[in-house]
Each structure stands twice: as C-alpha cells, then as structure tokens.
C-alpha cells in the first residue's frame, strides 16, 4: 500500500497531485530547486526537500538525487506529473531497482511509445490508423529531400524523441528544407539531447483530438472519451475541451477502440493518452501516445466524474479498476484554458518575472493553480501559471462560464495571455466549433494586436472608468458640489459626453450622451476591479491609472482612455499633436534568457522582419526580429551569454 508519495515535479501539477494524495490520506514529499525555494507547491506537501541549485539537470531531471530523497524519506511511490522525468524509462528502471513504485506505466511501455518511430510501427501492427510518412530517422539532407518528395509537400519534420512542439517544423518546398531541418535538429538536440528527426505528411486543416485511456495491471483497459486540443500556438495547446464538437459517436468508438488496442499491444497500465490528428472528413491518424498524465486531463475528469490521479495511484497499488467500459458516461461539456506568462502581442514571447498580484475567481470554476501573489516565474520553467477549467450542461454553458471566470482573473507584474484567451472564446468560429490546429495563425494573420472593444461594450468601459475617477474625486473633495458636472471621456476614435446629475456614496446618476443612467458601483482596490450594477445587470472590469490616461480591461478588450472635465477637453482637443521623434533604432531583450545564436554582424543591412538573434527562454527558442529597416552598428552580446530583460542587444545606425 502506498502511504507516502514523492512528487517529482513543480508548479500546478505538483499541487494537483498533492491534493488527491491528501484526499486519499497519503503523505506527500515535495521537492524543489534553488529557484523554487519559495514556490507555492511546497505549501501543499507534508514534507519538502531541496534537490539542487541547478534549475533542471541538477534538480528535477536528476534521477539519482530524486532516488536518494525518495530513500531518505522512505517513500513508497513517486508521482512524476508531466514533463521532467515522467516519460523517462531509465528513471522507471532505477525505481524498480530500488523497489519504489512509479505511479505510471512500465518502463517498457514508456520506452516503446517514447520513440516516435518505434511507436508508429507498433501502432500500425495494432491496427491503428497512421499518417503516410516515413518513420526512419533522416540521415542527411539528400535522404530527407528524397523522403519529402515521396510523401509530397507539405511535410512535417519532427523530433524522434520529442513532444510539446519542440524540434518540429513544417516544410512547404525543397528550398526551405535544409534550413528548417537544421533548426529542427538543433532544437531537438537542446531539448532532448537527441537530434534524430523524421518526416511525415503534413495534414492541412488538422484537428488535434486525443483519447484518454485507463488500464490496470489486471488486463482491464478502458477508454474515457476524447479531448479536442486544436487551439494551439507555437504548436502548444492553450485551449482544450471535452468532448470534441467535431466527431460523432461511431468515430469516437473507433478511436477509443484503436487506443485500447494500442495500449494492449504494449501491456499498458496507468493513465495514458493516444493522440490523433483528424482531417476535415473525420479521418483520424495516430500521432503519438503520451505515457503520462496530460496537462489537459481535468476536462476529462469533469465530464466523466473521475479523479485520474486517484485512479493512477490505485492502479499503482495493483488494484483493479472498479468500473467497466459501459459505466463510462460523458456528461456535459468542459473547457480548459492554459493561463500562461507570455505576451500574445509580442508573438507569444514568454514573460518571466515577479507576480506582484494574482487573483483567481473561485465560484463555479475549477482552478488548478501553480502560482500565487509574490510568486516568481522563472525563465527555466514552463510558462503555465494556472489552468482554468469550466463545466456546463452543454458547450455554450461551459463557454459562458469560462468567459465569466476569465474576466475575473487579474494579474499584475507579468504579461499573460488572459485577454487573448478571452478573445478566442468570443470568436464566432470558435463558438461554432469551426476550429483546427491552425486556428490561431489563420484567425490572427497579422499576429494578435489586442482586442478593440465592441460598440455595445463602450458604455460599460466608459462607466467603469468614470466610476473610478468620480470615486476618487468624491472622496478627496471638500464638498461634493466642487465636483464638475460636465465630463468628456475620450479614446482613440470616439468621445463621449457625460453630465452628472448626482453622486452619493456608491451611487451615481448621470446622462450618458442622451440617456440617463443610474447605477451603484464597488471598487476592489487590491485587484483593481470595478463593478457596476446597472438595473440589475453587473459589469466588471479592471481599471488601472497611468500617468496621463486610464486603461480599462473589460472582457478581453483593453482600452486606453482619458477622462477630462468638459472645459479641459475643449482645450485638449485644440492642442497641436506634436510629432514624436523617431524612435531609437535598437533591439532590447524582451525577456531574460540566453542568447543561443546571433544571426547578424556589424554593418549588416537588415529589413523589418529579419531575424536578428535567437534567445532561449522558458524552454522555447525565441527569434528576435527587427521591427525596422537599418544597418547593424554593434552587436553587444555573444552567443551563450545570459541576458536580462530590457538589456541592449543590438544597435543600429
């Protein structure tokens, strides 16, 4: 019987596992690297132990250190979470030697499924649909070009040992083959220490749909229904749902049965996921099998009512599954949003740093959180801050609950994708389920520019800002009669006329353009959330005061505006708008990280959009591009150098 579990992970998944352990009366040991010494997951564990200074190789990826800690604390089992050592068969072998239970599948299953080429052979044999393509590692350019020609462009280069989008490149023609092959190999080498890659057919308008399976040590294998994870950026999922709005019952059953037959082929036991790519005619092809708990497992939990971590622990305890295939019933709908520390407006660059304030909603929503206020997002780890998971009777309800929850999240100190997530949920095509893995690149062809507010939202935005401003004046003024009656709210393309009738405590009556509005408002100063109650309808938004303007975040939109007294506004309007000097031509590091490649040298002429250098941060290769035309004056960094945010990298003439 498992009585103590070491959780060989960090962040939200460590907390997630610890919660189930607590429920099952199992003691937990948490581990941490130097960077994580104040991290939130340690608060959820009964015991904690320092692994090592190094953020990765000397800590979470260090098998011997983790084994030693496991022995020191006499733990019965280790839960690996996802990432890190979760799919490392050597780790499982080591644990077997030490008689420590690995909460997950056998090392053999991990080994077989972890090799992308091997796994396809097995899948094919097990009767699973596979994508046309070659499973052999590419030996050289010529070999690659030949294979690509046989399969037909577009093709996809993928890392043999990979996952999570690393070492993946889409190639459209012969010309760009060599460059992209090199890039994929480099990335694979950096990420997995293995630069083998292979090529397969690239499927256009593909949907990513995966099947959750669960099997015990007694030969019982069940499929728990699918998750659709088609909303991806940089080949990484950010929105997942269960079930999929795309496939019908017969496809679902086929997919489930094929997944089960693959699991059977490798004697799988524990929770696992078989990933498929689905084309527009509902043809599905095997992608890979993930021999671990997936990030997006909660959506399956919400629609099936199961606790997958609990099931994994029971299976590791050699227990039999207590239910059968016919007991599995998918009820309702669930969405998961991955709240990430990144800047969607800067092509999803990760945003590391200190979280000054973070506030999540609690009502009617599941939050699997990894950070709290005062937490530090390190450049060495994943950018996932929290998962927000909604559940509803149907897709529409789950979607609405998700939007409500997202609009109540507030974060200060780092950039996040919260507004971008909201923007996706509000797209009509998303609401209709018209999605594929290219959804983001196709919907935001020019990149995400931030959302401009819709007409019907203007009123709410204006009133939120005005409430904040008038509240200040109401509180600071000697007499209420000193507060001006006539106001103008001014933003980029619109000005709104406001006349105050009366203000009393939290009540405001005013004329908004030509109609009278009466409402109560409240302000949560800690989270900067203003809410107004207009005839029973509640609007909530976040209001920030900048030096000379206010910013209102409202349902995924960000609006900068000014509030002027009427007389001031008239003068402001007539002020000549000076032309600001041309901005300095230089490139600053957008985040802390390590320069891995410099692509330009002194005197090089560069055009807007040219690649300048590659910065490794938060497990991603980030290409820094020029956003102007110019000539390189000086490169101030070297390859291999660590840089801080805002550090000057390259100057231009």
């Amino acid at each position, binding site marked *: 019987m498992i009585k103590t579990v070491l959780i060989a992970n960090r962040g939200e998944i460590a907390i997630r596992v610890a919660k189930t352990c607590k429920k099952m009366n199992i003691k937990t040991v948490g581990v941490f690297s130097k960077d994580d010494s*104040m991290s939130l997951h340690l608060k959820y564990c009964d015991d904690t132990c320092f692994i090592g200074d190094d953020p990765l190789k000397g800590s979470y990826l260090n098998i011997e250190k983790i084994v030693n800690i496991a022995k020191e604390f006499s733990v019965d089992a280790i839960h690996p979470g996802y990432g890190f050592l979760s799919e490392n068969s050597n780790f499982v072998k080591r644990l077997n030697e030490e008689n420590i239970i690995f909460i997950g599948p056998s090392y053999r299953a991990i080994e077989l499924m972890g090799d992308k080429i091997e796994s396809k052979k097995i899948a094919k044999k097990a009767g699973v649909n596979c994508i046309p393509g070659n499973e052999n590692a590419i030996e050289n350019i010529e070999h690659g070009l030949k294979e690509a020609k046989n399969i037909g462009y577009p093709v996809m280069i993928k890392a043999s040992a990979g996952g999570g989008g690393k070492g993946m490149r889409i190639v459209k023609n012969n010309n760009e083959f060599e460059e992209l092959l090199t890039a994929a190999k480099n990335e694979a080498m950096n990420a997995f220490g293995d630069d083998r890659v292979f090529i397969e057919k690239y499927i256009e308008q593909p949907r990513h749909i995966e099947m959750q399976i669960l099997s015990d040590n007694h030969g019982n294998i069940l499929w728990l229904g699918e998750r659709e994870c088609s909303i991806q950026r940089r080949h990484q999922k950010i929105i997942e749902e269960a079930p999929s709005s795309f496939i019908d019952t017969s496809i679902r059953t086929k997919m489930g049965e094929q997944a089960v037959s693959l699991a059977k082929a490798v004697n799988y036991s524990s929770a696992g996921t078989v990933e498929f790519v689905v084309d527009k005619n509902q043809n599905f092809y095997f992608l890979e099998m993930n021999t671990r708990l997936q990030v997006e497992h909660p959506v399956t939990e919400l629609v099936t009512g199961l606790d997958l971590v609990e099931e994994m622990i029971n299976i590791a305890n050699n227990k039999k599954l207590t239910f059968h295939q016919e007991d599995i019933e998918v009820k309702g709908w669930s969405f998961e949003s991955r709240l990430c520390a990144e800047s969607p407006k800067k092509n999803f660059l990760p945003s590391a740093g200190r979280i000054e304030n973070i506030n999540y909603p609690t009502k009617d929503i599941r939050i699997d959180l990894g950070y709290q*206020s*005062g937490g530090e997002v390190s450049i060495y780890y994943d950018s996932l801050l929290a998962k927000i998971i909604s559940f509803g009777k149907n897709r529409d309800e789950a979607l609405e609950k998700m939007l409500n929850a997202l609009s109540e999240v507030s974060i200060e100190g780092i950039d996040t994708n919260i507004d971008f997530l909201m923007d996706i949920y509000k797209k009509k095509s998303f609401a209709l389920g018209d999605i594929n893995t290219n959804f983001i690149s196709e919907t935001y062809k020019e990149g995400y520019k931030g959302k401009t507010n819709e007409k019907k939202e203007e009123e709410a935005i204006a009133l939120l800002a005005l409430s904040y401003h008038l509240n200040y004046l109401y509180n*600071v003024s000697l007499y209420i009669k000193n507060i001006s009656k006539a106001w103008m709210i001014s933003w980029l393309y619109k000005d709104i006329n406001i006349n105050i009738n009366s203000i009393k405590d939290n009540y405001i009556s005013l004329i908004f353009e030509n109609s009278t509005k009466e409402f109560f408002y409240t302000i949560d*100063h800690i989270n900067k959330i203003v809410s107004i109650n207009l005839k029973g309808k509640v609007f909530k938004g976040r209001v920030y005061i900048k030096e*000379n303007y206010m910013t209102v975040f409202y349902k995924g939109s960000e609006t900068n505006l000014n509030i002027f007294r009427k007389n001031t506004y008239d*003068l402001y309007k007539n002020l*000549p708008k000076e032309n600001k000097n041309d901005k300095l031509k230089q490139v600053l590091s957008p985040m802390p990280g390590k320069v891995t490649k410099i692509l330009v040298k002194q005197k090089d002429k560069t055009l807007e959009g040219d690649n300048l250098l590659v910065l490794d941060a938060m497990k991603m290769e980030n290409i820094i591009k020029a956003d102007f035309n110019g000539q390189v004056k000086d490169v101030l960094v070297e390859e291999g150098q660590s840089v801080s945010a805002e550090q000057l990298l390259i100057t231009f003439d």
Partner: protein
Amino acid sequence: MKDKINYYLKQINIAKEGGGKNRIDSQHKKGKLTARERIDILLDDNSFNEIGMFVKGKNINENEKELAILGDGVITGYGRINGYEVLIYSQDFTVYGGSLGEEHANKICKILDMAIKNKIPVIGLNDSGGARIQEGVAALGGYAEVFQRNVLASGVIPQVSAILGPCAGGAVYSPAMTDFIFMSEQTSYMFVTGPEVVKTVTHEDVDTEYLGGANTHTTKSGVADFSFDNEIIVLQELRRLFDFLPQSNTSEAKMKKFNDDTSKKIESLNTLVPEDKNKAYDIKELIVNVADEKDFLEVQKDYAKNIVIGFIRMEGYTIGVVANQPLALAGCLDINSSRKAARFVRFCDCFNIPLLTFVDVPGFLPGTDQEFNGIIKHGAKLLFAYAEATVPKVTLITRKAYGGAYDVMSSKHLRGDINYAWPTAEIAVMGAEGAAKIIYKSANEEILKDKIKEYEEKFSNPYIAASRGYIDEVIKPDITRIKLIDAFKILRNKKLKNPWKKHDNIPL
C-alpha cells in the same frame, strides 16, 4: 447706468483678450495655452476670482499713443482645487511676452502676501520672457520683492510652480524657492543663462531643450520634480499633488475618505526580498502595497533613482515616503539621493506630514567623485533633516541597514518613533564578508569562509538590534500595512519641540 455697465463689460472683454487674438493663436500653435485657460484647467469649475484685472503698467512706448495692456501680463486671484482654497498667479505670454515689470511684480507680491496672511497655498504658473527691459532696474527690484516673499512663505504654506514656457535668468529663482516644480515637455525651459551666452563664454553648443528642458531638469539637475507630456497633464497632475498637501503649517491635515481594506494581509510581500542577498527588487512594490488604494504620487521619479520619495495615504491621511531603491546603485546613498531625500524630509516636517522610511541600504557610495564633491556634507543633510524632524517617524528595515547609512535612515537614535524590521533585515556595521575580511585580515581562504558564515549567522539579522531596543518589533512582511496603519494611528497626536533657535544651520 446702462452705459456704465456696458463700458465695464467692454473693459472686461479687453482685459480678457490679453495680448490679442494673433498672439493667442501663436501661443496655441506652440502647444501652449493662455494664462486664463490654464487657470480654468487648474481650478474647480467657475471658482476663479480675479484680483487686479485693471492694473496697468507703464506705457512701454511713451511716444506712441498705445495704451498699456490691462493686467500687465499676469493674471492673479484665488479659487479652489477640489474645494480647497488656493491663491494663484499665471503669467500671460501674450502680453509683453509675459515679461516682469513693476506692476506685474506687485500683483504677484500681493498674492504672496495674501497667501502668507491667510495661510493658503500658492501656485505660480510661469511663462515669461524675463525682466521687462524697458522698465530697467524697477523690474529687477520687482523680482527681488517676489523672492523675499517666497522665502517668507517657505515652510508656512505650500508653494508650487509650473514652468509652462520660458523661465530664464533671475526669473528662475522664484520657482527655485518654491516647494515643487512642474515642467511641460518640449514647451518649457529654465536656465540661468541661455544658449547664446553659453556659447560665447564656454563655447558649448547647446539648444534650449538640452540646456534647460523638462528632461534635463528631471533627470540631470534635479531642479524640477515633475514633468509631463503637455500642459494639460501638468495642470491635472498639479491638482493631484495638491490633494495630498495641507493648506499650511498650522492647518489640519487633509483627510481623504477611503474605502480600502486596512486589515488585509498582503501575502505577496513575504517573497518581495529575494533569497539571494545580492539580487535587487523593486521597493516601489512595497510602497504601492501599503498605500491606500495603491495610490502613490512619486516625486522626482527620474532623478537619483537610488532613493524613492513621494506621497501615499494611510487611512486617508497623507504620508511622506522615503525609500532606498535596490534596483538603482543597489540602493546606496550618494550625493544626489541624499539631497533629494533631505529636501523632501524637510518639506514633510514643515507641513506636519508623517514620514515613512523603508530601509535597504548597503552604505554610502564610495569613490573620489563622491568625496571630491562633498558627500560628507551632502550626506549630512539627510542625517540633519531626519534628526531635526519632529513629525511622526516610522521606519521599516526590509533588508540591509549597514554602517552610517543605517544611522541616517530614520534610525531609532534619530528619534525614530516606531522602528520595524522584517525577518530578512540585517543591521550591522557592514556586510558579513567585508567584516570578516577586516577582522581576520591574515586568515586563509578556508578560515575566512567559515568566519564569513559565522558572522552572517551572528550579525546578519534584526535580533541583535532588537535586543538593544533599536528595533521595536520584527514583523512578518504580509502584515506590514496593518502594522504601519497602527503605528501612525498611535502617533497622530505626537507633540515634540526642538530647542528654541533663530534657525538651524543645516550643512548647505
């Protein structure tokens, strides 16, 4: 009767036209407002009462029959900002280029006299070409009359200046003696001698913007306290500063009604000080988090960034904050930061604004540059300012408080009323490494390492200081706001008098 009223109305219109439509248009084209428009923005709606609209100066050109312009190039009067009375003068560039003549000066003096007599703050909006040369020595006299009153008013009522156009030569000394200076970017400048003279004398080629623009004075010289994009923002932000200030040195503090939680723990502060002692963090995050409604008005934010000064409110009352900033120069004290903070401490003390000091200071900045330029006397200014201040003084040491800099930063020994420390505080003569190296000069590396560790364990904490009563309480960071509010509450009626003197002799 009707005729008389008509004549009166006509005269008012003439006065309001100032230097005429053409000059007003040219003022607008430069991105500047007229003297009256500025008053409109600065004051509450319809609250302005003008004094001296019909004052006339000498005819500049006596041979011609041109009449002197009503008002003589400066609009003066009184009004309100969010209900509080204020006296104001606003120079009119459209009239004789806003130049200062005898009557112009008299009007300003009248306002300053009223301000002192009635204990009402005064705001000057400066936009003037300088002395009115035609009036000769009378103009010079006028300046000095204004200076004298600025000095008498200093410490009695808050005086605030906004530079919204030229301000050169002798004219700079009136704003220089006021408590705060605002500047508008690109449209204002201040210098003692202009680019032409500079070129003749020192052969330096500079333009007005570089020599004395808003950017220069808020980043290089520290002469100005605030600068903003344009005049409108300057005037709006001036209103905001005014909301923090009392009416005079004897008036009650302004109290802003507040609706922020006073008992909420702020968990994020528990991780503000990084594990790594040599890592910087932003002290402004602490300031903002202890402030009511996270409202912090920073003063001189771009000058001597190693110290942060400004105003917050706690339970509605204005508090002056001084804080070492680890993000700049590791939070060291140097000449500029000492001067910056010293003047701010003295302003707060003048006007009974309690002082909150956050300490994370590794010491004074070493070097010949600092010594040759007199860090000894400049550093002493801050020490002097803290020591003489009689307002409530609450201090919190977040991390380092080393050496003489510990003493300076509102320590218990300088009559600090309540001195807190976080558990991460290190109050010592110097850092562990430096200390061990001095004490064990001849020790080898191995021994030195042990000694550093030993010294660290022994002295790098707040408990030795606390055991001597230099620290009143060691507090967990998350309850800092609650603790500070309680501290200022108990000190609200603090009465402390320094011995009678004509005035002190601060090391200037």
